[in-house]
């Protein structure tokens, strides 16, 4: 039996090209559907310091909370459901749990509670669920997805009591939990927070000034004069501080900037990390559009948003897994005339992005 050593797991890259002014553009919907965002990276060419309105926007991302050792049945607490979940826009994700090893929990803004469990835990929990669509021959992973706004999940209802009993006595799950609420911050979460050890966190902003940066030319030209993989590789090299000034005969690395290229005298790389909400990212995109409306030396800005690797859900609440990387991110390259190129990337254990 011969083994195909050339085979690699499936990955998808979806490239959209359109304009913010086009009636069919779905950029808002695409951004809103990725509920759990970990990192936002911004690359501003020919820029030495963050413009004031962008800086203010970046430093005003919603704060989030870390609750330590939260019993998961507390997410079914009647008061928490009424003050937060039923109002919409609660984002919750288990922290430091690995999607391929541990039990992961996500609470989505539409009131869906999603648990990703191994087989034994799923059988002990005793609640209706489905085998993961990504486990083929041996069903080792199961997903329980519950709509907390459904009539059967009203406190006291049959489905509600079954899940509550399962999480309280049969499978008493406890996990560190990240929680955020939009709008309104933590006021509606206070009752839950007050019962456990919690801390409030502000997304961490870091800025890095770059000099003499090789950059592909005409990034926003139509049609694009580069292929998306080369562009994403160059952007990854900039984000990781990897030099692109290598000759093809260099022993260590032959990574080079895609041609044709130009030299930027300076550029600014800004990143924000934490539990970031899609609403904040949409406001950031609007601010960047206003920034590009002003006369600029360079006519583009690149924004990259990374989803959580260990979230049980990705775009649109669809199942997400991590075979080798768990990547689910998108890069938005915005031009000065309201045009954009959007690249959405998912890995082997993801469905096609929206």
């Amino acid at each position: 039996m011969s083994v195909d050593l050339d085979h690699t797991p499936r990955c998808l890259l979806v490239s959209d090209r359109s304009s913010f002014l086009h009636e069919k553009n779905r950029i808002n919907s695409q951004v809103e559907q990725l509920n759990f965002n970990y990192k936002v990276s911004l690359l501003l060419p020919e820029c030495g310091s963050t413009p004031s309105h962008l800086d203010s926007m970046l430093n005003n991302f919603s704060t989030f909370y870390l609750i330590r050792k939260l019993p998961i049945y507390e997410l079914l607490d009647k008061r928490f459901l009424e003050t937060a979940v039923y109002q919409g826009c609660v984002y919750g994700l288990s922290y430091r749990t690995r999607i391929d090893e541990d039990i992961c929990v996500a609470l989505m803004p539409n009131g869906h509670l999603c648990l990703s469990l191994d087989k034994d835990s799923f059988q002990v929990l005793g609640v209706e669920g489905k085998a993961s669509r990504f486990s083929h021959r041996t069903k080792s992973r199961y997903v329980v997805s519950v709509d907390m706004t459904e009539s059967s999940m009203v406190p006291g209802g049959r489905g509600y009591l079954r899940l509550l009993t399962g999480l309280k006595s049969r499978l008493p799950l406890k996990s560190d939990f990240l929680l955020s609420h939009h709008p309104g911050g933590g006021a509606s979460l206070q009752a839950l927070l007050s019962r456990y050890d919690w801390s409030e966190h502000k997304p961490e902003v870091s800025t890095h000034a770059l000099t003499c940066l090789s950059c592909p030319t005409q990034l926003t030209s139509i049609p694009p004069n580069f292929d998306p993989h080369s562009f994403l590789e160059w952007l990854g090299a900039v984000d990781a501080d990897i030099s692109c000034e290598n000759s093809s005969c260099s022993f260590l690395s032959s990574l080079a900037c895609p041609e044709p290229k130009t030299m930027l005298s300076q550029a600014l790389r800004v990143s924000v990390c934490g539990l970031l909400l899609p609403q904040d990212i949409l406001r950031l995109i609007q601010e960047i559009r206003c920034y590009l409306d002003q006369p600029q030396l360079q006519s583009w800005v690149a924004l990259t948003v990374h989803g959580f690797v260990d979230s049980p859900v990705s775009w649109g609440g669809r199942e997400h897994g991590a075979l080798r990387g768990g990547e689910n991110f998108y890069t938005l390259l915005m031009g000065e005339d309201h045009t954009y190129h959007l690249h959405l990337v998912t890995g082997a254990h993801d469905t096609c992005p929206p």
Partner: protein
Amino acid sequence: MKPADQKDESPVYQRVVLKNASPYHYMKVCLVLENESTRLSAVELKQFIITGLKSLYGEVGAALNFDVLKYDADTLTAFLRVYSRGLVKLWSSLTLLGSYQNQACAFRVLQVSPFLLALTGNSRELQLD
């Protein structure tokens, strides 16, 4: 310069879906040595990986082209780039590399992705303590 009466093209919407089209894969690896104070340069690291490829896949395997994109000598962590068709060979060589200069060692593969950007946005690095 276009004529004044020529209208601008109306914005278009175009979508292209590429499946398994990434020419490269990227790995974030860390070398763990028995003697933790041992240090290697980037060139020594690359030569060490080439010897691993040679011992498992012979001369043809050792000719597999890969790049050491970034290397941190303090933590012995490196970003590697390899053609997608060579990923399995490179990864298996790293797995089976067990000794460096008569001391036990192991490569820890921290992350693998067909996109270099994914290696810079790994949420498992989020530290809130």
